[in-house]
């Protein structure tokens, strides 16, 4: 088997001396889409932030490799250049930075770091127009400050726009579906499905099964208390939908606080 795109081995992470991730194991091969499902507070966002290199998380054990390279040794910008992309659960607003300027700086920073030529302005505008059209993003929105005054749905679509422009090898999407109505969800899912290819892997983090009707995963993992407690095919998501999380994580938990919590 070829080198996995992403290989997470017994990853343990603490925040302020409290262990949040308690030994995560996960391997993504090129072309695969994996879903991670779990209750609020189970550690899904922590996993996505640790992969992206956010400060404040202490890795106390385990390893993460991206195409065989030690991901945890890299700074956040190096991880992005190496091919990692995180679609944020809560995208950050940056007043004073026009979205279009940001997209151009980010795209050219990555091209430059990889030794590729920077895109000319007309080429850049053409690429953005195409990608924005696909996601039904109004180009007027791109003139506004980054994520400022964007609706919840606009923010999520802007994340997927960035993802399609930056062409990462590993896409981590943290609850990209939350706050989206069904139409927006379909648009986002279509944008994501266009990006599925054999050289790319995706990790779709979600709380609800409905996104997985549109982005059909190869594997589903149930996340509870900082680790994967069960893995299966796409039918596992449907099972979760019916039974709630209670059957999968600690028996002490109340089923009433399952999926809808």
């Amino acid at each position, binding site marked *: 088997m070829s080198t996995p795109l992403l290989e997470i081995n017994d990853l343990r992470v603490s925040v302020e001396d409290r262990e949040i991730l308690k030994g995560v194991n996960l391997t993504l091969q090129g072309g695969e889409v994996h879903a991670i499902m779990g209750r609020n507070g189970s550690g899904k966002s922590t996993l996505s932030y640790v992969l*992206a*290199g*956010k*400060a404040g998380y202490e890795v106390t054990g385990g390893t993460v490799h991206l195409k065989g390279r030690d991901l945890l040794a890299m*700074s*956040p*910008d190096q*991880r*992005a*250049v190496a091919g990692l*992309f*995180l679609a*944020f659960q809560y*995208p*950050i607003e*940056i*007043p*004073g*930075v026009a979205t279009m300027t*940001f997209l151009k*700086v*980010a795209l050219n*920073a*990555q091209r430059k*770091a990889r030794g590729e030529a920077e895109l000319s302005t007309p080429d850049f505008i053409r690429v953005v127009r195409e990608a924005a059209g696909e996601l039904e993003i109004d180009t007027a929105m791109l003139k506004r400050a980054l994520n400022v005054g964007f609706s919840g749905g606009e923010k999520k679509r802007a994340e997927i726009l*960035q993802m399609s422009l*930056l062409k990462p090898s590993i896409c981590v999407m943290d609850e990209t579906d939350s706050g989206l109505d069904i139409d927006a969800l379909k648009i986002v899912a279509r944008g994501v499905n266009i990006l599925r290819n054999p050289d790319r892997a995706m990790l779709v983090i979600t709380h609800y099964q409905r996104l997985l009707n549109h982005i059909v995963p190869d594997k589903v993992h149930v996340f509870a208390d900082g680790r994967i407690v069960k893995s299966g095919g796409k039918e596992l998501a449907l099972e979760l939908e019916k039974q709630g999380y209670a059957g999968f994580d600690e028996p002490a938990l109340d089923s009433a606080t399952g999926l809808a919590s």
Partner: protein
Amino acid sequence: MPAEWGIKIAGAHRFAMKNGTPALAAPVAGLTAHIRKGPVGGANEDAVLALNHALVRSHLGLEISGQTDRIIQIDHWRGGPAAHVTSAVQIEVAAGASATVVETFSGSAAAHLGNHATRIKVGDGASFTHIVLDKSDHISRHLASFDYEIGADVRLRSLVINDGAALSRTYISANFGGSGSHGDFGGLNLAGEGTHLDIPLDIVHAVAGTTSTELFKQVANRGGKAIFQGRIIVARGAQKTDAKMMMAGLMLAEGAQILAKPELEIYADDVVCGHGATCGDLDDEQLFYLMSRGIDPADARAMLVRAFVEELFDFLGEGDLYDVLHDVMSGVASDWVAGQ
């Protein structure tokens, strides 16, 4: 004298002030220029201003009537061996006229002490934009005073940017003497290592029915000190004054200093006046977001500093002329960060 001197602003109508000596430029419609003996008129209670009045030999006088569609630049340049350079400009904007004047300061790497004064009278119904940019060499000391006498129904915009001399004091004073006028005063101090930048501001709302905003931003790095002392005086009888003063500071490192001293002196009872100050460092969440897209930490910091100051340049609006000016102004901030 180097062949290249001063600061180039494409398309501007430029007056040279080399070592304080005014020179005339080719005439343009709506603008008359003179060189006059002695100091500019007006009050000189301020010690630095009094020194300027006592020492200056001649000054540049500009009279603006009608609409001048080109940007007028006064390009101050100090060169040669270190010297005490005194200079002055008087600008009279006739009733109903409109113009933009940019004063730039630059010069060679000698320990000059500059003392400059500009006095501006803005006539009734006129609209006037005045931008001052100090890009003198770090080794020099820069003292400058800008005074605005404002008539009725005026629209005034004033912006000062300090990114040059290691020691600078930019004194801004304004008197609203006619009703229906509005002024926006803005400023930016960029204080790197070994730099002390001070902007004292005195705004007097002398008559009823005038409004102003004051927005001053200061960015300081380790070993830099930026100071804003803003005072707004609302005279007895100056009812319906609306004045809002704001200072926003950004500290880039430990050991940076940002000081703000706002003062309101209000002698009328039917007014809306306020002041505020905020100070913080770069937002870690924003930095992480930019870096997570592949932007390296230095560029991410530069983007956020530029974003912090950008609001000051919003008024420049669209159009070729203003695009040039915008690039010069916001380029100052990103160049400064890159040099830190």
